[in-house]
């Protein structure tokens, strides 16, 4: 919107010269202006149609929702009458578009998106689509054109365009769903921007996969991953919350690798978590936990957290007896204190 503000002084100066343009030097400007006027009017008329109001064109001009324009033109709100005002508005638009090519597109797209927000159930694509359909017919005056558009609307209900419209609505609905999915998409309306975001997101996800697989390749000297670790993850459904979860997992990893669990690691895991045989494995657990704990972290608190977390996660997947587990706590605590 800032760009529009900047252009305002431009257009303010040109208003008085508007009527003089025909006699002036810039005839091509006038022609372009006319073309813009037609396009702009069509846009406005669509709005009126979609709003379902039958008010006159004047009323239409008053209601024109573009805040950018209205902001710079407080005069417009009082008694818009006649053709002078529409042409002025077009002139404004024209100037805006003339000055910057890139911003032109963006501004117009923004306008469209602004309109889109205010128009219920009317997507940007619809306006673009119908405007392209209305383009072919000749435009004479605002009021007459308005009537033309009505007739065109009837035309627009033939099966082909209806089907297209349905498709577009479906697409926009899915776009909205995607908006929730792709982060940071809430502020963007319009198909092109949304698609852009989606593309970026997909690309970044794919690159992440590449990168992570590379990293795994470096970390793991062989491809046979520590199966236990994966099964642990599977059981615990690590939501990637915290270090403690990983430490918990790794504690178990170590236990397993040290004890060289047998063929069925799952059973071993179960036995572990349920707090099976007490003596030797425990010392292992404790010692491994010792080694992993970072200095400065209190032993008790962390181990407790670990086991608590595991309980919480375990309880969702595996039935186990809590009292045995707590037994494990106490014994390990004792050992730690020693």
């Amino acid at each position: 919107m800032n760009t529009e503000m900047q252009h305002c002084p431009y257009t303010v100066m040109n208003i008085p010269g508007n009527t003089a343009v025909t006699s002036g030097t810039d005839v091509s400007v006038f022609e372009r202006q006319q073309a813009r006027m037609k396009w702009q009017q069509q846009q406005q008329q669509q709005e009126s149609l979609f709003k379902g109001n039958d008010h006159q064109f004047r009323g239409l001009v008053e209601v024109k929702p573009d805040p950018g324009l209205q902001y710079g033109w407080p005069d417009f709100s009082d008694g818009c009458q006649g053709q002078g005002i529409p042409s002025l508005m077009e002139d404004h638009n024209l100037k805006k578009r003339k000055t910057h090519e890139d911003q032109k597109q963006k501004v117009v797209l923004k306008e469209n998106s602004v309109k889109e927000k205010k128009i219920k159930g009317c997507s940007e694509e619809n306006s673009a689509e119908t405007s392209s359909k209305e383009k072919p017919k000749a435009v004479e005056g605002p009021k007459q054109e308005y009537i033309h558009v009505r007739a065109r609307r009837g035309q627009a209900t033939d099966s082909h365009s209806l089907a297209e419209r349905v498709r577009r609505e479906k697409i926009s609905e899915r776009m909205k769903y995607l908006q929730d999915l792709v982060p940071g998409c809430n502020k963007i309306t319009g198909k092109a921007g949304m698609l852009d975001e989606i593309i970026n997101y997909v690309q970044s996800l794919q690159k992440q996969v590449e990168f992570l697989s590379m990293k795994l390749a470096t970390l793991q000297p062989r491809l046979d991953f520590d199966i236990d670790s994966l099964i642990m993850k599977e059981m615990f459904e690590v939501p990637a919350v915290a270090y403690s979860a990983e430490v918990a997992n790794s504690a178990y990893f170590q236990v397993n690798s040290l004890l060289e669990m047998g063929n069925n690691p799952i059973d071993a895991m179960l036995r572990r978590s349920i707090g099976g045989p007490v003596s030797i494995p425990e010392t292992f657990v404790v010692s491994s936990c010792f080694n992993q704990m970072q200095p400065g972290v209190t032993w008790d608190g962390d181990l407790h957290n670990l086991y608590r977390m595991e309980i919480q996660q375990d309880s969702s997947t595996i039935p186990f007896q809590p009292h045995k587990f707590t037994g494990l706590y106490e014994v390990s605590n004792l050992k730690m204190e020693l």
Partner: protein
Amino acid sequence: MKMHTSSKLRKEFIKKWVKGLQICCSSKKNMDILERKKKIKLCADIALASAKNETTLWSIALISEAKKDDENKILVDNLLGPESRFKPRMTNRQMIACHKRVRSKKILKKSRHVCQKMKKMGPPKSNLAAYIAKKLVKRRTQVLKRLVPGGESMDKFSLIKEALDYILSLRIQVDVMRTLVNANEVLNQSDSKIYN
């Protein structure tokens, strides 16, 4: 509801990925890092796609794409196991033909539209904004088609749906891989601490 399905998918993915890696590892002993990475990624992708159980287009396309490579074919078949239902819907030639057909149809349609427009339209500038918007959208859908596996032969409509699903699954994949990497890192750290 979504969380539930995603966690199920996650488990499936992990299981299949591990299985695939095991198969992979048993075949060759020493691989250089790039090969390893490729295998890892391949296993992950196939696992992800097969966890979908043929419900989505992109997963089917991904698997049939992987099967084209003879080397990978064995792996894939082994991975999917005896319950392998993944027969490529069309043979290679048919797929190419299908693509060509789709593309030529689109070109024809586009040229027809353009002709009509050029006849009726005056200077193109008057519709510049809408025209540009459309072009942007078109270009971007093209890019998206290339990104999503099997996207070439989808219409705009289902493309978005597939892209949605693809994003969800990719997220799961990334998440799982990342937690594995983290776990491994911790493990390695602690390993070094023990030995020191």
